[in-house]
Protein backbone atom coordinates (compact mmCIF):
# COMPACT_ATOMS: atom_id res chain seq x y z
CA UNK A 1 0.00 0.00 0.00
CA UNK A 2 1.02 3.64 -0.31
CA UNK A 3 2.00 5.59 2.80
CA UNK A 4 3.61 8.90 3.64
CA UNK A 5 6.90 8.09 5.34
CA UNK A 6 9.59 10.02 7.13
CA UNK A 7 12.83 9.54 5.23
CA UNK A 8 15.27 11.42 7.47
CA UNK A 9 15.85 15.09 8.31
CA UNK A 10 12.72 16.95 7.38
CA UNK A 11 12.21 14.70 4.38
CA UNK A 12 8.95 12.94 3.55
CA UNK A 13 8.12 10.61 0.69
CA UNK A 14 5.24 8.43 -0.42
CA UNK A 15 6.46 4.84 -0.40
CA UNK A 16 5.10 1.35 -0.92
CA UNK A 17 4.95 -0.36 2.49
CA UNK A 18 3.44 -3.67 3.62
CA UNK A 19 -0.22 -3.55 4.60
CA UNK A 20 -0.84 -3.73 8.35
CA UNK A 21 -1.86 -7.03 9.90
CA UNK A 22 -3.86 -7.82 13.01
CA UNK A 23 -1.24 -8.21 15.77
CA UNK A 24 -3.50 -8.50 18.81
CA UNK A 25 -6.94 -10.00 19.27
CA UNK A 26 -8.47 -6.58 20.08
CA UNK A 27 -7.16 -4.92 16.89
CA UNK A 28 -9.09 -3.69 13.89
CA UNK A 29 -7.76 -2.73 10.48
CA UNK A 30 -9.20 0.51 9.11
CA UNK A 31 -9.18 1.66 5.49
CA UNK A 32 -8.30 5.33 5.90
CA UNK A 33 -10.53 7.84 4.15
CA UNK A 34 -9.25 11.03 5.83
CA UNK A 35 -6.00 11.72 7.70
CA UNK A 36 -4.93 15.17 8.88
CA UNK A 37 -1.67 16.97 9.60
CA UNK A 38 -1.18 18.22 13.16
CA UNK A 39 1.10 20.69 14.91
CA UNK A 40 2.37 17.76 16.97
CA UNK A 41 3.92 16.28 13.80
CA UNK A 42 6.24 19.22 13.28
CA UNK A 43 8.66 18.61 16.16
CA UNK A 44 9.01 15.02 14.91
CA UNK A 45 10.29 16.41 11.63
CA UNK A 46 12.73 18.91 13.05
CA UNK A 47 16.38 18.15 12.48
CA UNK A 48 18.05 16.34 15.33
CA UNK A 49 14.94 14.65 16.65
CA UNK A 50 15.87 11.02 16.59
CA UNK A 51 12.42 9.79 17.57
CA UNK A 52 11.20 8.37 14.28
CA UNK A 53 12.90 5.67 12.26
CA UNK A 54 13.53 6.09 8.54
CA UNK A 55 10.51 4.66 6.77
CA UNK A 56 8.08 5.24 9.65
CA UNK A 57 4.60 6.28 8.53
CA UNK A 58 3.35 9.65 9.83
CA UNK A 59 -0.15 10.75 10.82
CA UNK A 60 -2.40 10.22 13.84
CA UNK A 61 -5.72 12.02 13.20
CA UNK A 62 -7.92 9.85 11.02
CA UNK A 63 -11.21 8.34 10.05
CA UNK A 64 -12.10 5.39 7.85
CA UNK A 65 -13.92 2.14 7.38
CA UNK A 66 -13.37 -1.03 9.39
CA UNK A 67 -12.20 -3.79 7.02
CA UNK A 68 -11.05 -6.44 9.49
CA UNK A 69 -11.53 -7.11 13.21
CA UNK A 70 -9.71 -9.34 15.68
CA UNK A 71 -11.63 -12.08 17.51
CA UNK A 72 -11.98 -10.02 20.71
CA UNK A 73 -13.42 -6.91 19.06
CA UNK A 74 -17.04 -6.57 20.22
CA UNK A 75 -18.24 -3.11 19.26
CA UNK A 76 -17.23 -2.87 15.63
CA UNK A 77 -17.95 -4.74 12.46
CA UNK A 78 -16.54 -4.75 9.00
CA UNK A 79 -18.06 -1.83 7.12
CA UNK A 80 -18.43 0.53 10.11
CA UNK A 81 -17.40 4.12 9.51
CA UNK A 82 -15.27 5.08 12.50
CA UNK A 83 -13.21 7.96 13.75
CA UNK A 84 -10.23 6.83 15.81
CA UNK A 85 -8.75 8.63 18.81
CA UNK A 86 -5.12 9.50 18.12
CA UNK A 87 -4.18 8.27 21.60
CA UNK A 88 -4.01 4.49 22.08
CA UNK A 89 -5.43 3.45 25.46
CA UNK A 90 -6.48 0.14 26.98
CA UNK A 91 -9.66 1.33 28.70
CA UNK A 92 -9.08 -0.92 31.70
CA UNK A 93 -6.09 0.30 33.70
CA UNK A 94 -6.59 2.54 36.73
CA UNK A 95 -5.95 5.68 34.68
CA UNK A 96 -8.33 4.77 31.87
CA UNK A 97 -11.02 3.90 34.41
CA UNK A 98 -10.73 7.46 35.71
CA UNK A 99 -10.95 9.01 32.25
CA UNK A 100 -7.23 9.79 32.12
CA UNK A 101 -6.88 7.87 28.87
CA UNK A 102 -3.69 9.51 27.67
CA UNK A 103 -2.03 8.42 30.94
CA UNK A 104 -2.88 4.79 30.10
CA UNK A 105 -0.45 2.25 31.54
CA UNK A 106 -0.84 -0.19 28.66
CA UNK A 107 -1.29 1.78 25.42
CA UNK A 108 2.34 2.61 24.79
CA UNK A 109 5.37 0.42 24.51
CA UNK A 110 5.66 -2.56 26.85
CA UNK A 111 9.43 -2.26 26.76
CA UNK A 112 10.67 -0.50 29.90
CA UNK A 113 13.78 0.54 28.00
CA UNK A 114 11.66 2.21 25.34
CA UNK A 115 8.62 3.41 27.27
CA UNK A 116 10.20 4.89 30.35
CA UNK A 117 13.17 7.00 29.33
CA UNK A 118 11.22 9.98 27.90
CA UNK A 119 9.35 10.91 31.09
CA UNK A 120 9.93 8.07 33.52
CA UNK A 121 6.51 6.45 33.14
CA UNK A 122 4.83 4.63 30.32
CA UNK A 123 1.88 6.55 28.85
CA UNK A 124 -0.81 6.05 26.26
CA UNK A 125 0.38 5.31 22.74
CA UNK A 126 -0.01 7.35 19.57
CA UNK A 127 -0.04 6.52 15.88
CA UNK A 128 2.77 7.82 13.72
CA UNK A 129 5.00 8.62 16.68
CA UNK A 130 8.31 7.30 18.00
CA UNK A 131 8.53 3.83 19.47
CA UNK A 132 8.09 5.08 23.01
CA UNK A 133 4.48 5.80 21.96
CA UNK A 134 3.97 2.13 21.18
CA UNK A 135 5.43 1.73 17.71
CA UNK A 136 2.10 2.10 15.87
CA UNK A 137 2.33 3.03 12.21
CA UNK A 138 0.74 6.32 11.22
CA UNK A 139 -2.51 6.98 9.40
CA UNK A 140 -1.19 8.79 6.32
CA UNK A 141 -1.62 5.45 4.56
CA UNK A 142 -4.27 3.41 2.79
CA UNK A 143 -4.73 1.17 5.85
CA UNK A 144 -3.88 1.41 9.52
CA UNK A 145 -3.97 -1.03 12.42
CA UNK A 146 -6.06 0.13 15.39
CA UNK A 147 -5.12 -1.54 18.71
CA UNK A 148 -7.81 -1.76 21.43
CA UNK A 149 -10.37 -0.99 18.74
CA UNK A 150 -13.33 -1.19 21.12
CA UNK A 151 -11.80 1.59 23.21
CA UNK A 152 -10.33 3.90 20.57
CA UNK A 153 -12.67 3.73 17.56
CA UNK A 154 -16.08 5.43 17.50
CA UNK A 155 -18.92 5.04 15.00
CA UNK A 156 -19.63 8.25 13.12
CA UNK A 157 -23.29 9.32 12.87
CA UNK A 158 -24.59 9.54 9.29
CA UNK A 159 -25.23 13.24 9.74
CA UNK A 160 -21.52 13.97 10.16
CA UNK A 161 -19.37 14.10 7.03
CA UNK A 162 -15.90 12.57 6.81
CA UNK A 163 -14.41 16.05 6.46
CA UNK A 164 -15.97 17.14 9.73
CA UNK A 165 -15.61 13.93 11.73
CA UNK A 166 -11.86 13.59 11.14
CA UNK A 167 -11.42 16.48 13.58
CA UNK A 168 -13.00 14.37 16.33
CA UNK A 169 -9.87 12.21 16.25
CA UNK A 170 -7.52 14.73 17.86
CA UNK A 171 -7.92 18.48 17.34
CA UNK A 172 -11.47 18.75 18.73
CA UNK A 173 -10.92 16.56 21.81
CA UNK A 174 -7.68 18.41 22.50
CA UNK A 175 -9.51 21.73 22.31
CA UNK A 176 -12.24 20.42 24.57
CA UNK A 177 -9.61 19.14 26.99
CA UNK A 178 -8.05 22.62 27.16
CA UNK A 179 -11.37 24.13 28.22
CA UNK A 180 -12.06 21.22 30.56
CA UNK A 181 -8.66 21.44 32.27
CA UNK A 182 -9.40 25.10 32.89
CA UNK A 183 -12.86 24.26 34.23
CA UNK A 184 -14.28 26.85 31.83
CA UNK A 185 -17.85 27.78 32.62
CA UNK A 186 -20.40 30.60 32.30
CA UNK A 187 -19.01 34.07 32.80
CA UNK A 188 -15.38 33.14 32.29
CA UNK A 189 -12.90 35.13 30.27
CA UNK A 190 -10.62 32.72 28.43
CA UNK A 191 -7.42 33.47 26.53
CA UNK A 192 -6.00 30.94 24.07
CA UNK A 193 -2.44 31.07 22.72
CA UNK A 194 -2.32 29.62 19.21
CA UNK A 195 -4.89 29.91 16.42
CA UNK A 196 -4.16 26.60 14.75
CA UNK A 197 -6.90 24.00 14.57
CA UNK A 198 -6.34 23.09 18.23
CA UNK A 199 -6.43 26.69 19.43
CA UNK A 200 -9.55 27.51 17.39
CA UNK A 201 -11.33 24.41 18.66
CA UNK A 202 -10.30 25.33 22.21
CA UNK A 203 -11.87 28.74 21.71
CA UNK A 204 -15.05 27.15 20.38
CA UNK A 205 -15.15 24.67 23.27
CA UNK A 206 -14.84 27.56 25.72
CA UNK A 207 -17.80 29.34 24.10
CA UNK A 208 -19.89 26.16 24.02
CA UNK A 209 -19.19 25.74 27.74
CA UNK A 210 -20.52 29.22 28.41
CA UNK A 211 -17.45 31.46 28.47
CA UNK A 212 -18.43 35.11 28.21
CA UNK A 213 -15.36 36.28 26.32
CA UNK A 214 -12.68 34.39 24.44
CA UNK A 215 -9.49 36.02 23.19
CA UNK A 216 -7.20 34.16 20.78
CA UNK A 217 -3.51 35.05 20.39
CA UNK A 218 -1.33 34.29 17.35
CA UNK A 219 0.78 36.08 14.78
CA UNK A 220 -0.76 34.73 11.60
CA UNK A 221 -3.34 37.20 10.37
CA UNK A 222 -5.25 34.65 8.32
CA UNK A 223 -5.68 32.39 11.31
CA UNK A 224 -6.76 35.29 13.53
CA UNK A 225 -9.30 36.48 10.93
CA UNK A 226 -10.62 32.95 10.66
CA UNK A 227 -11.15 32.75 14.43
CA UNK A 228 -12.96 36.10 14.43
CA UNK A 229 -15.12 35.24 11.45
CA UNK A 230 -15.97 31.59 12.09
CA UNK A 231 -16.04 31.41 15.87
CA UNK A 232 -16.79 35.00 16.77
CA UNK A 233 -13.95 35.54 19.23
CA UNK A 234 -11.61 38.48 19.85
CA UNK A 235 -8.01 38.18 18.66
CA UNK A 236 -4.58 39.60 19.44
CA UNK A 237 -1.45 39.61 17.29
CA UNK A 238 1.54 38.84 19.48
CA UNK A 239 3.99 40.42 17.07
CA UNK A 240 2.22 43.76 17.34
CA UNK A 241 0.85 43.78 20.89
CA UNK A 242 2.10 43.50 24.46
CA UNK A 243 -0.10 40.50 25.21
CA UNK A 244 -0.17 40.50 29.05
CA UNK A 245 -0.75 44.27 29.12
CA UNK A 246 -3.50 44.11 26.52
CA UNK A 247 -5.17 41.19 28.30
CA UNK A 248 -5.15 43.07 31.60
CA UNK A 249 -6.68 46.08 29.93
CA UNK A 250 -9.41 43.99 28.33
CA UNK A 251 -10.25 42.19 31.59
CA UNK A 252 -10.74 45.02 34.05
CA UNK A 253 -7.15 44.68 35.28
CA UNK A 254 -7.75 41.11 36.47
CA UNK A 255 -6.38 38.92 33.69
CA UNK A 256 -8.22 36.00 32.07
CA UNK A 257 -9.77 33.40 34.35
CA UNK A 258 -8.41 30.60 32.22
CA UNK A 259 -5.38 30.69 29.91
CA UNK A 260 -4.85 27.84 27.46
CA UNK A 261 -1.60 27.27 25.61
CA UNK A 262 -2.30 25.69 22.24
CA UNK A 263 0.78 27.07 20.50
CA UNK A 264 2.77 24.73 18.37
CA UNK A 265 6.44 24.90 17.77
CA UNK A 266 7.18 28.56 17.36
CA UNK A 267 8.39 29.90 14.08
CA UNK A 268 12.09 29.49 13.54
CA UNK A 269 13.13 28.08 16.89
CA UNK A 270 13.53 24.64 18.34
CA UNK A 271 12.50 23.44 21.74
CA UNK A 272 14.69 21.15 23.82
CA UNK A 273 12.84 17.84 23.49
CA UNK A 274 15.18 15.71 25.49
CA UNK A 275 17.60 16.01 28.33
CA UNK A 276 20.55 15.58 25.98
CA UNK A 277 19.41 18.34 23.66
CA UNK A 278 18.92 20.59 26.62
CA UNK A 279 22.43 19.99 27.88
CA UNK A 280 24.01 20.29 24.48
CA UNK A 281 22.21 23.53 23.76
CA UNK A 282 21.05 24.28 20.26
CA UNK A 283 17.52 24.79 21.52
CA UNK A 284 15.93 28.11 22.34
CA UNK A 285 12.50 28.70 23.76
CA UNK A 286 9.82 29.37 21.20
CA UNK A 287 6.12 28.74 20.70
CA UNK A 288 4.77 26.72 23.58
CA UNK A 289 7.28 27.70 26.24
CA UNK A 290 7.01 31.43 25.51
CA UNK A 291 3.24 31.14 25.44
CA UNK A 292 3.10 29.34 28.79
CA UNK A 293 5.35 31.92 30.38
CA UNK A 294 3.14 34.69 29.05
CA UNK A 295 0.01 32.86 30.19
CA UNK A 296 1.36 32.53 33.73
CA UNK A 297 2.07 36.26 33.79
CA UNK A 298 -1.31 37.16 32.33
CA UNK A 299 -3.63 34.81 34.22
CA UNK A 300 -5.74 36.25 37.02
CA UNK A 301 -5.00 35.30 40.62
CA UNK A 302 -6.38 31.88 41.43
CA UNK A 303 -6.88 31.15 37.73
CA UNK A 304 -5.83 28.15 35.69
CA UNK A 305 -3.21 27.77 32.98
CA UNK A 306 -3.74 24.72 30.77
CA UNK A 307 -0.81 23.43 28.72
CA UNK A 308 -1.60 21.49 25.53
CA UNK A 309 1.54 21.86 23.42
CA UNK A 310 3.37 18.61 22.94
CA UNK A 311 6.56 20.14 21.62
CA UNK A 312 8.89 21.24 24.37
CA UNK A 313 10.58 18.89 26.75
CA UNK A 314 12.45 21.25 29.02
CA UNK A 315 11.81 24.90 29.74
CA UNK A 316 13.98 27.06 31.93
CA UNK A 317 13.44 30.60 33.24
CA UNK A 318 9.93 29.60 34.19
CA UNK A 319 8.14 32.19 36.39
CA UNK A 320 7.54 29.81 39.24
CA UNK A 321 7.10 32.64 41.70
CA UNK A 322 4.02 33.82 39.83
CA UNK A 323 2.45 30.38 40.22
CA UNK A 324 2.89 30.68 43.96
CA UNK A 325 2.08 34.32 44.55
CA UNK A 326 -0.93 34.34 42.26
CA UNK A 327 -2.21 31.01 43.50
CA UNK A 328 -2.36 29.56 40.02
CA UNK A 329 -3.24 26.09 38.95
CA UNK A 330 -1.09 24.85 36.06
CA UNK A 331 -2.34 21.73 34.35
CA UNK A 332 -1.41 19.84 31.23
CA UNK A 333 -2.33 16.68 29.41
CA UNK A 334 -2.29 14.89 26.15
CA UNK A 335 -5.86 14.53 25.06
CA UNK A 336 -8.20 12.04 26.71
CA UNK A 337 -10.25 11.67 23.54
CA UNK A 338 -12.10 8.53 24.58
CA UNK A 339 -13.79 10.71 27.18
CA UNK A 340 -15.01 13.36 24.77
CA UNK A 341 -15.38 11.90 21.27
CA UNK A 342 -18.99 10.57 21.51
CA UNK A 343 -20.13 13.94 22.88
CA UNK A 344 -18.15 15.84 20.23
CA UNK A 345 -19.69 13.76 17.45
CA UNK A 346 -23.13 14.74 18.77
CA UNK A 347 -22.17 18.42 18.74
CA UNK A 348 -20.90 17.93 15.19
CA UNK A 349 -24.18 16.28 14.17
CA UNK A 350 -26.02 19.34 15.53
CA UNK A 351 -23.76 21.70 13.53
CA UNK A 352 -22.38 23.19 16.73
CA UNK A 353 -18.86 22.19 15.74
CA UNK A 354 -18.33 22.77 12.04
CA UNK A 355 -14.70 21.76 12.07
CA UNK A 356 -14.35 21.05 8.34
CA UNK A 357 -13.65 24.74 7.71
CA UNK A 358 -10.26 24.16 9.35
CA UNK A 359 -9.33 21.78 6.53
CA UNK A 360 -7.95 24.54 4.36
CA UNK A 361 -6.22 22.07 2.03
CA UNK A 362 -7.54 18.68 0.88
CA UNK A 363 -4.94 16.64 -0.97
CA UNK A 364 -4.32 13.08 -2.16
CA UNK A 365 -1.59 11.19 -0.31
CA UNK A 366 0.88 11.64 -3.17
CA UNK A 367 0.95 15.33 -2.33
CA UNK A 368 2.01 14.60 1.25
CA UNK A 369 5.42 16.27 1.05
CA UNK A 370 3.88 19.40 -0.46
CA UNK A 371 1.10 19.31 2.13
CA UNK A 372 3.56 19.31 5.00
CA UNK A 373 5.57 22.11 3.40
CA UNK A 374 2.40 24.23 3.22
CA UNK A 375 1.47 23.35 6.77
CA UNK A 376 4.88 24.04 8.22
CA UNK A 377 5.23 27.39 6.45
CA UNK A 378 1.60 28.28 7.17
CA UNK A 379 1.62 29.17 3.48
CA UNK A 380 -1.51 29.93 1.50
CA UNK A 381 -3.56 30.29 4.69
CA UNK A 382 -2.93 26.66 5.59
CA UNK A 383 -4.42 25.55 8.93
CA UNK A 384 -4.82 21.80 8.41
CA UNK A 385 -4.05 19.63 5.40
CA UNK A 386 -6.38 16.66 5.15
CA UNK A 387 -5.26 13.75 2.99
CA UNK A 388 -7.62 11.32 1.26
CA UNK A 389 -5.50 8.17 0.93
CA UNK A 390 -8.07 6.34 -1.19
CA UNK A 391 -7.94 8.99 -3.90
CA UNK A 392 -5.20 8.81 -6.47
CA UNK A 393 -3.50 11.94 -7.67
CA UNK A 394 -4.43 12.57 -11.20
Amino acid sequence: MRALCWVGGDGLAVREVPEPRLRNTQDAIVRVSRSATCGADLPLLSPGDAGLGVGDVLGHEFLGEVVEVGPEVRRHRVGDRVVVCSVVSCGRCWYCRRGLYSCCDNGGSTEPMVAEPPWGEPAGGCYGHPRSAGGFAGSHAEYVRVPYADVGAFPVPDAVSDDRAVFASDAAPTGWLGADLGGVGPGDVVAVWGAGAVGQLTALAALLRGAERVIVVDRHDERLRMAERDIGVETLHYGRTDIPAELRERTGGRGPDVCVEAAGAGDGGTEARGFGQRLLGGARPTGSSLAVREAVHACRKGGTVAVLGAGPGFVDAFPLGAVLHKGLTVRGARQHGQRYIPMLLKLMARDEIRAERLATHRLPLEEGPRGYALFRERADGCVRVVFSPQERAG
Partner: protein
Amino acid sequence: MGRNTRTGIMIVVAASGVAAGRALVGAGRRHSRRSVTATGAGRWQVVTVNRPPAEVLPGGLWPEPLRRLDGAVEVQVGTAPGARGTELAARLRADGPPLPGLAAHLLGDDPALLVRRALRQVKQLAETGEVLRADVGPPDRPGDGGGFLPEVP
Protein backbone atom coordinates in the same frame (compact mmCIF):
# COMPACT_ATOMS: atom_id res chain seq x y z
CA MET B 1 -1.11 -0.01 61.13
CA GLY B 2 1.83 2.17 61.95
CA ARG B 3 2.69 5.35 60.20
CA ASN B 4 5.36 3.72 58.14
CA THR B 5 3.24 1.10 56.47
CA ARG B 6 2.65 2.14 52.93
CA THR B 7 0.97 -0.77 51.37
CA GLY B 8 -0.86 -2.84 53.90
CA ILE B 9 -0.07 -6.48 54.13
CA MET B 10 2.54 -7.86 51.78
CA ILE B 11 2.73 -11.57 51.31
CA VAL B 12 5.88 -13.27 50.16
CA VAL B 13 4.82 -15.86 47.65
CA ALA B 14 6.73 -18.87 46.58
CA ALA B 15 6.70 -19.91 42.97
CA SER B 16 5.30 -23.25 43.94
CA GLY B 17 2.11 -21.40 44.54
CA VAL B 18 0.91 -21.13 48.06
CA ALA B 19 1.70 -17.96 49.92
CA ALA B 20 4.79 -18.65 51.91
CA GLY B 21 2.83 -17.72 54.97
CA ARG B 22 5.09 -14.99 56.20
CA ALA B 23 3.12 -11.78 56.23
CA LEU B 24 5.19 -8.63 56.10
CA VAL B 25 4.17 -5.06 56.30
CA GLY B 26 5.04 -3.11 53.19
CA ALA B 27 8.04 -1.52 54.78
CA GLY B 28 9.68 -4.90 54.77
CA ARG B 29 10.54 -4.41 51.14
CA ARG B 30 12.95 -1.68 52.02
CA HIS B 31 15.57 -3.94 53.48
CA SER B 32 17.90 -5.66 51.15
CA ARG B 33 21.08 -7.57 51.52
CA ARG B 34 22.24 -6.29 48.17
CA SER B 35 23.38 -2.77 47.63
CA VAL B 36 20.52 -0.79 46.19
CA THR B 37 20.97 1.30 43.08
CA ALA B 38 18.34 3.13 41.07
CA THR B 39 17.46 0.15 38.93
CA GLY B 40 19.95 -2.20 40.48
CA ALA B 41 19.48 -5.79 41.38
CA GLY B 42 18.72 -5.18 45.04
CA ARG B 43 15.75 -2.90 44.42
CA TRP B 44 12.22 -4.20 44.22
CA GLN B 45 10.54 -3.54 40.90
CA VAL B 46 6.84 -2.92 41.47
CA VAL B 47 3.73 -2.52 39.35
CA THR B 48 0.20 -1.80 40.45
CA VAL B 49 -2.30 -4.02 38.67
CA ASN B 50 -5.89 -2.83 38.50
CA ARG B 51 -7.24 -6.29 39.44
CA PRO B 52 -7.67 -8.01 42.81
CA PRO B 53 -4.77 -10.19 44.04
CA ALA B 54 -6.75 -13.37 43.42
CA GLU B 55 -6.90 -12.51 39.72
CA VAL B 56 -3.29 -11.44 39.46
CA LEU B 57 -2.09 -14.67 41.07
CA PRO B 58 -4.82 -17.16 40.25
CA GLY B 59 -4.70 -20.02 42.73
CA GLY B 60 -1.76 -18.31 44.40
CA LEU B 61 0.48 -19.29 41.47
CA TRP B 62 2.92 -16.93 39.85
CA PRO B 63 1.47 -15.75 36.55
CA GLU B 64 3.33 -15.97 33.28
CA PRO B 65 5.80 -14.68 32.29
CA LEU B 66 6.99 -14.30 35.88
CA ARG B 67 6.90 -18.06 36.33
CA ARG B 68 9.75 -18.40 33.87
CA LEU B 69 11.94 -16.56 36.33
CA ASP B 70 11.21 -19.08 39.08
CA GLY B 71 14.23 -19.45 41.29
CA ALA B 72 15.87 -16.30 39.99
CA VAL B 73 13.50 -13.76 41.59
CA GLU B 74 11.50 -13.37 44.74
CA VAL B 75 7.98 -11.96 44.60
CA GLN B 76 5.72 -10.07 46.96
CA VAL B 77 2.09 -9.24 46.48
CA GLY B 78 -0.16 -6.89 48.42
CA THR B 79 -3.35 -4.93 48.18
CA ALA B 80 -2.93 -1.42 46.79
CA PRO B 81 -4.50 1.44 48.74
CA GLY B 82 -7.65 3.16 47.53
CA ALA B 83 -9.08 0.19 45.64
CA ARG B 84 -6.25 0.39 43.14
CA GLY B 85 -5.91 -3.38 42.90
CA THR B 86 -2.71 -5.27 43.57
CA GLU B 87 0.86 -4.21 44.16
CA LEU B 88 3.08 -6.83 42.64
CA ALA B 89 6.78 -6.65 43.43
CA ALA B 90 9.71 -8.73 42.29
CA ARG B 91 13.48 -8.60 42.58
CA LEU B 92 16.38 -10.83 41.78
CA ARG B 93 17.38 -13.19 44.54
CA ALA B 94 20.80 -12.61 46.01
CA ASP B 95 21.35 -16.36 46.08
CA GLY B 96 19.42 -17.14 42.92
CA PRO B 97 20.69 -19.09 39.95
CA PRO B 98 21.97 -17.14 36.96
CA LEU B 99 19.30 -15.77 34.64
CA PRO B 100 18.08 -17.94 31.80
CA GLY B 101 20.94 -17.97 29.26
CA LEU B 102 19.85 -15.67 26.48
CA ALA B 103 18.26 -13.20 28.90
CA ALA B 104 21.49 -12.87 30.85
CA HIS B 105 23.37 -12.27 27.64
CA LEU B 106 20.96 -9.59 26.45
CA LEU B 107 20.63 -7.82 29.75
CA GLY B 108 24.25 -7.34 30.51
CA ASP B 109 24.58 -5.64 33.85
CA ASP B 110 20.99 -4.43 34.23
CA PRO B 111 18.96 -7.51 35.00
CA ALA B 112 16.36 -5.37 36.75
CA LEU B 113 15.02 -4.61 33.27
CA LEU B 114 14.13 -8.23 32.80
CA VAL B 115 12.12 -8.10 36.00
CA ARG B 116 10.41 -4.86 34.99
CA ARG B 117 9.46 -6.24 31.63
CA ALA B 118 8.03 -9.39 33.16
CA LEU B 119 5.99 -7.35 35.64
CA ARG B 120 4.66 -5.05 32.90
CA GLN B 121 3.56 -8.08 30.92
CA VAL B 122 1.88 -9.67 33.94
CA LYS B 123 0.04 -6.41 34.49
CA GLN B 124 -1.07 -6.11 30.86
CA LEU B 125 -2.24 -9.68 30.74
CA ALA B 126 -4.27 -9.27 33.93
CA GLU B 127 -5.76 -5.93 32.90
CA THR B 128 -6.35 -6.38 29.19
CA GLY B 129 -5.96 -10.09 28.47
CA GLU B 130 -2.97 -9.76 26.15
CA VAL B 131 0.40 -8.13 25.68
CA LEU B 132 0.18 -5.27 23.23
CA ARG B 133 2.46 -5.63 20.24
CA ALA B 134 4.04 -2.92 18.14
CA ASP B 135 3.48 -2.81 14.40
CA VAL B 136 6.13 -4.44 12.29
CA GLY B 137 8.51 -1.59 11.60
CA PRO B 138 10.00 -0.63 8.29
CA PRO B 139 12.85 -2.81 7.05
CA ASP B 140 15.42 -0.35 8.37
CA ARG B 141 14.11 -0.75 11.90
CA PRO B 142 13.62 -3.80 14.07
CA GLY B 143 10.06 -4.76 14.92
CA ASP B 144 9.02 -5.79 18.40
CA GLY B 145 11.41 -4.56 21.09
CA GLY B 146 14.50 -6.26 22.29
CA GLY B 147 12.74 -9.45 23.31
CA PHE B 148 14.15 -9.84 26.79
CA LEU B 149 11.54 -12.47 27.45
CA PRO B 150 9.98 -14.61 24.80
CA GLU B 151 6.71 -13.00 23.81
CA VAL B 152 3.66 -14.33 25.52
CA PRO B 153 1.50 -15.80 22.80
